């Protein structure tokens, strides 16, 4: 019987200690800066190098480019950029290899939708998703910003 009473003492003491639960979703959950949430896309910086689509382990990025409309400049600009969030595992490899940091992660994680079609996000939605953008990217592909190792 003694063991039971000692255990009871522990639980009674825990009743008096402060609460550890949070009341999400009434109170938003603050994620640290490095959190890997839904991506944010900046079309002006993208050079259509295709590294993100190549490194994606689940092949969820599809992108097409078109030649730069400005005849002075070389290179391509991005035409369509889709991420299929049914299979994106938010692993962060695409932001790691992007040489211009055109795709970065935010701290959002709420993606629930009522229909599977809503999970196929296009370039416009990803560009508009620009709040809570992650600052510390540790980007290996863009050494000019001091990320190369």
């Amino acid at each position, binding site marked *: 019987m003694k063991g039971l009473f000692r255990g009871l003492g522990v639980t009674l003491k825990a009743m008096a200690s402060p609460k550890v639960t949070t009341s999400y979703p009434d109170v938003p959950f603050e994620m640290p800066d490095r959190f890997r949430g839904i991506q944010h896309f900046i079309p002006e910086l993208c050079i259509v*190098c295709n590294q993100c689509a190549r490194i994606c382990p689940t092949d969820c990025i599809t992108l097409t480019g078109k030649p730069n409309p400005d005849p002075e400049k070389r290179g391509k600009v991005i035409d369509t950029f889709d991420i299929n969030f049914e299979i994106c595992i938010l692993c962060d490899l695409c932001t790691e*290899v992007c040489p211009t940091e055109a795709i970065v992660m935010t701290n959002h994680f709420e993606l629930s939708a009522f229909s599977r079609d809503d999970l196929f996000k296009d370039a416009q939605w990803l560009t508009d998703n620009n709040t809570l953008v992650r600052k510390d990217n540790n980007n290996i*592909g863009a050494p000019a910003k001091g990320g190369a190792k």
Partner: protein
Amino acid sequence: MSEEEKKAQQESGPADAEKDEKQKAAETTPIAEAGQTAAQQSVEAADPEKAAKLKAAAEARAARAAAKAAAETAEAAEASAPPPPSPKQPELDAVTALIRREVADEALEDAYINELNGHMPTLIVKNEYWRSIAELLKIENDFTYLRNVSGVDYETHLEVVYHLVSLRSGRELAVKIKADREKPEVSSATPVWATANWNEREIYDLLGIVFPGHPDLRRIMMPDDWAGHPLRKDYEPLDSEV
């Protein structure tokens, strides 16, 4: 055009470089922008300024390749001296001598040291003798702990690898048995080490190797009525969406 060939080589070379993008961007921006198709490449190369730049880049590449080739021949001359004997060689010799003595002389097909893997002694044995060799290793040589059984599908044949370890002395051993593709059979090691039970069932399920002597050989991961062996290199799923 040799320039085109060299460009194509460079593109398809390290196809999955995720580091060092800077090198690619810095020195080969014309190539990156030349796009993925040969048609676009020829169009851009028609521009005389660009052609001159590409030529310079090709020459630099050729110079680097020549330097690399020179270094390689120097290395090859060094490497032709025989490597020092491995520290685990006496263990391997003891095991091979034991097998030759107790089981049969031709039971062993090959015995070597796997340097990459921390010099693990590796044996390749013939299937007819595997069961007696297994009992010998467990009883005489104290390899009581079977760590891992893996099946590998080389396209010409199938192979089963058993990794053994002796808990008391820390010695390790890897044993490989080959099986041919048409009718793959490897004597089961389950009567010797019970660990092999489910491992062999998994290999049967995914690769199709039959283990005569196994008490209960049936599919373990896939549903019981699945057709085919998924881990084989030539596996075509009946339903491609699955």
